[in-house]
């Protein structure tokens, strides 16, 4: 498409990375029979353009709910009960006109079915889901899926005026059917699907697991989003396919300067993808650090235990794995004090079970929620 303005495709230099999403003290609760489950309890993070933030944690720790809260898709009976999600937005229409004017939107205040969030969801912030089979509609072809996203979200300038004019004309139009198909073929080719001209007419059941996940990525990226939320995008895939998919994501991120929020429980995947990592446990973020700091200098006992409990490739040591004793607690009956204390190897009786730890800074961009690091 020669009509895509060049500004969208150039990579911004590192130092001009602007903040895209700022989450402050986010709280999401599920009011179910039997009590209130605090799925996300006081999450704070920011994501910059072109940056990858990884969220790791075990199942039920609130990773996916966080992602859904940003897009305002928290399933019932879940509710955002506190905090803010600020989205620094450059609306599409303005971007097309060459403007970089940022407007701040409080996502938690939006009507979840309203016009604004529907423009953002899928268009400016796209999402890839874990299960490629159940997130594609079996009766639609790959092309139809992409066409749907493109026709809803992608805008093209009506006409661009020559260099002699100072301003571009700020009119735009939606893509036509033929253009949408062309975009679909292009996107499928970009994510590495062989024979995209034929595959565009394939139904999900005719594709393999890896190809389906690539179609998911193609749908998400066809709208040229500013941010991609990837919720366990490779968990259902084999390692060889996983490596391909991760490569595609990295490559597309570089060309489009897209922010990625990468949710996974696989520490190997996150080590190679993320710039910054948030570790969650029972709805609380327990540690946040740059990727190297987190892997080489973890502070929180939970992070340490998590890192030690994965078997590592390499010369065999014959040692037992360091496992975390006990189980994840029942979310309806959380332990008092620090929620991790019943499983914590560094548990201090009389302290950890009574006091709730605060979010303290322990280094450059390194935060932790643990009483060991409090004065």
């Amino acid at each position: 498409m020669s009509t895509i303005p060049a500004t969208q495709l150039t990579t911004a230099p590192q130092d001009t990375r602007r903040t895209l999403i700022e989450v402050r003290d986010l709280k999401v609760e599920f009011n179910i029979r039997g009590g209130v489950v605090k799925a996300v309890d006081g999450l704070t993070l920011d994501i910059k353009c072109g940056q990858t933030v990884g969220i790791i944690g075990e199942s039920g720790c609130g990773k996916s709910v966080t992602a859904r809260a940003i897009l305002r898709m928290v399933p019932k009976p879940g509710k955002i009960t506190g905090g803010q999600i600020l989205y620094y937005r450059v609306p599409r229409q303005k971007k097309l006109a060459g403007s970089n004017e940022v407007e701040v939107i409080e996502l938690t205040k939006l009507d979840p079915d309203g016009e604004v969030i529907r423009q953002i969801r899928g268009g400016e912030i796209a999402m890839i889901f874990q299960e490629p089979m159940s997130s594609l509609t079996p009766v639609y072809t790959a092309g139809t899926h992409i066409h749907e996203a493109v026709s809803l979200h992608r805008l093209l300038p009506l006409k661009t005026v020559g260099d002699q004019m100072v301003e571009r004309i700020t009119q735009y139009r939606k893509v036509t059917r033929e253009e949408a198909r062309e975009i679909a073929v292009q996107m499928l080719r970009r994510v590495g699907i062989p024979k995209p001209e034929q595959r565009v007419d394939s139904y999900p059941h005719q594709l393999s697991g890896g190809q389906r996940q690539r179609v998911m990525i193609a749908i998400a990226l066809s709208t040229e989003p500013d941010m991609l939320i990837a919720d366990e995008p490779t968990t259902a895939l084999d390692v060889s396919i996983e490596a391909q998919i991760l490569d595609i994501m990295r490559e597309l991120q570089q060309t489009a300067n897209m922010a990625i929020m990468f949710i996974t429980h696989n520490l190997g995947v996150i080590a190679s993808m993320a710039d910054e990592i948030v570790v969650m446990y029972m709805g609380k973020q327990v540690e946040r650090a740059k990727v190297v700091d987190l892997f080489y200098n973890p502070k929180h006992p939970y992070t340490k235990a998590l890192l030690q409990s994965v078997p590592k490739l390499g010369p065999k040591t014959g040692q037992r794995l360091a496992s975390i004793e006990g189980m994840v607690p029942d979310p309806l009956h959380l332990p008092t004090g620090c929620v991790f204390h019943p499983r914590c190897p560094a548990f201090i009786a009389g302290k950890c079970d009574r006091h709730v730890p605060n979010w303290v800074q322990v280094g450059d961009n390194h935060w932790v929620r643990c009483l060991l690091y409090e004065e």
Partner: protein
Amino acid sequence: MAQTTNGKTDNILLDVKGLKKYFPIQKGLLRRTVGYVKAVDDVSLYVREGETLGLVGESGCGKTTASRCIIRLYEPTAGQVLFKSKALSANGQPKMVNLLELTREEMTKVREEIAMIFQDPINSLNPRMTVADIIAEPMVIHGKYEKGKSEELIIQLLERVGLRPDHLRRYPHEFSGGQRQRIGIARALALNPRLVLCDEPVSALDVSIQAQTLNLLQDLQEEFNLSYLFVAHDLSVVQHISDRVAVMYVGKVAEMASAEELYANPLHPYTEALLSAVPKPDPLYKSERIIMQGDVADPSNPPSGCYFHPRCRYAVDLCKQKAPEFRELKPDHWVACHRAEELKLQGI
């Protein structure tokens, strides 16, 4: 067909030779067979007593089918499954029997000695049975249940896998995934087996629970002198728990060697590519990853010659024409590749 037992019969508990399982593809009104899915196509491997053989491969490569053929949950199309059975010998001395030639009654007897742990801890437990009934069921089926004595044994087993006796009267839905897998393990041990077929026992579990379960399996192996056939797709888990590892690709074993040898000096290009694709939990680890192009071959319509040749970066013309033989290149290191001698492959 390759001779797998390499003449040495040292402590071999299970010896699988040329195992094949073809599933027919039926079409049309008359259900005529139009082709076959060659899920397992000439698999040869062996497990020694007290050791763990890891079986790895991508999804759809036939790992699970192979393990199910071994205890005849699927009836294999061809091949031999030799098992050193105690239950079938008259004098108490274990003797090698071909499981595929046994009658129904004999097979039932052998199944006392071979247990299975399944991948999905939710679907492999009957939701309408209590934990006590689930663990007792193998004993009841094999006529070994005695009131009092067996109940004691069940409590012992339950404690051994890390559950409490007061869990006995509960139902599977009251447990977490890791606990359910422990129930599955306790059930597998109820008849005091010698070989346990573990079909992806930890892939559905969280990292911390996975570590607990792996440690438990290792402890039990030592305590009861168990042999494991450990089927999994996670190469790091397999390296951790296995003494020897077999790598499968589209129904065939590509390579089999001791865990150290296979990970350090792979001889098959597929093993090399698979190892390089595993994400390493170390942000500073930089290596050239070998990206395998394309998808896993279709087992109903496999490529000619070596099944891996369309994705192999070392493929030559010979690979397209002739299927490589599964041969022992170094002592106890088996590989199916024409170019295994000349290639210098990168391990970990």
